[in-house]
């Protein structure tokens, strides 16, 4: 048989064989297989879509959570700052108050001391006066008994006066 001349018998059988193969495969292989493949493609696609949706939802939730968290953080910071300010103010106030109190107490104490001092001085003066009187009295009683000593005393006084 020739190499490059197609023989009619083989063309005939090839045509029949190939068309029969095509028909049987079309009916019993390609149709069910392609249908199954398409169905699976569809289900995979829808599953992917669902997964994508779920992912989006998750992302939304996460974003919301983060937003809430950020808000809470801001609020906390605000509260903390306020508290700090308040405590600072209170400390400041307390300090001022205590300084004021202290000053007042010192002043009071000074006044008391002054009064006490004055009272004590008055007392001392009184005591001195009394003592002086008593001494004077005793001296007078003793010395005024003789004339000489009286004169001496007077002289002494006079001398003192002059010296003064």
């Amino acid at each position, binding site marked *: *048989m020739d190499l490059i001349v197609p023989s009619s*018998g083989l063309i005939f059988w*090839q045509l029949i064989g190939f068309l*029969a193969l095509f028909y049987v*495969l079309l009916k*019993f292989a390609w149709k069910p297989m*392609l249908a*199954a*493949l398409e169905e699976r493609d569809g289900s995979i696609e829808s599953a992917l879509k669902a997964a994508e949706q779920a992912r989006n939802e998750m992302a939304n939730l996460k974003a919301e959570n983060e937003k809430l968290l950020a808000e809470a953080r801001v609020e906390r910071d605000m509260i903390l700052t306020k508290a700090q300010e308040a405590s600072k103010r209170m400390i400041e106030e307390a300090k001022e108050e205590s300084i004021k109190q202290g000053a007042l107490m010192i002043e009071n104490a000074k006044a008391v001391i002054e009064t006490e001092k004055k009272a004590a001085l008055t007392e001392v003066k009184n005591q001195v006066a009394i003592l002086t009187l008593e001494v004077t009295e005793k001296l007078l009683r003793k010395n005024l008994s003789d004339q000489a000593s009286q004169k001496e005393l007077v002289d002494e006084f006079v001398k003192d006066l002059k010296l003064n």
Partner: protein
Amino acid sequence: MTRKILALSVLFSVMLLSFTSATFAAGSETEGGEDPTGFIMHHIKDSHEWHFFNVGHTHVTLPLPVITYAPDRGLEFYSSKDFQNPETHKFGKEYAHNGIYIDDHDHLGRVDGAAIYDFSLTKNVAMMIFVIAVILYIFLSAASHYKKHGAVAPRGIASWVEPIIIFVRDEIAEKSIGPKYKKFVPYLLTLFFFVWIGNLLGLLPGAANLTGNIAVTFTLAILTFIITNVNGNKDYWKHVFATPGVPVALLPIIVVVEFIGLFTKPFALMVRLFVAITAGHIVILSFIALVFIFESYTIGVVSTLMVTFINMIELLVATIQAYVFTLFTAMYIGGAVAEHAHDDHH
């Protein structure tokens, strides 16, 4: 790359063929051995009997049915055994049976010289039936998986064929044809697997050169031609007979070129597959023939290594040619069904 290898192997095979036939022409005169060109051609061409191998002088063959039709005699059925020498298995005019003979070139003829048509189930027809049986076995068992389990992950044979089916559907059909691809996927799948499995089984020792037979590639190309032109839309025909954007003066030339183009496309399909597969077989057989020509152990070892190497390339070629045949078919169909924009160039 493969194109280069292919071209090289064709060139090489042609060189080898001329070389070996010359050597053998000389050798056969002195020693009376077998003609290697005949040996190679015998393996490549179709035959009325399926010859496997010889054990000593005994030919191990499968006799095939010979079916003839003559207008005056009607259909007749014989066995290839009826037309050959029972010892040497040679066909020839001298072994005519019932007024019909098969000559030594495997041509059927009538002793009285009247018309007779050969519808024999030749070696290639038997091979085709074998290929079809293998394909049916693979795909019917794969399809049963989907029938039983529905659209779940594939298992077993289905998981082997599924990626290929998806490849043909998505990479060949959808990309080349466009939105209307679905209708053509079954034809493209059948074509791809017929050519591919035919190529692969043709590489088996003793197998027939089915997809390297021009009648087979002719039939496949004709089917592609019919499908392409039956599905051609208005744009496609307008493109052929009133090519848009071409000056009127040039139109007669362009229309002739376009019209010839309708036929050169399937012709190229036919020749490409035929040449690629036949050349591969010739190269392999040439290397085997070298062993018997030189009758040397060194040549035997080298030839065996080369045959192994070429066989691996042939595995690649088998797949590439199936892909290319399917891809070009899809592209021709794509060109026929595409909706062209009206300002399209060309």
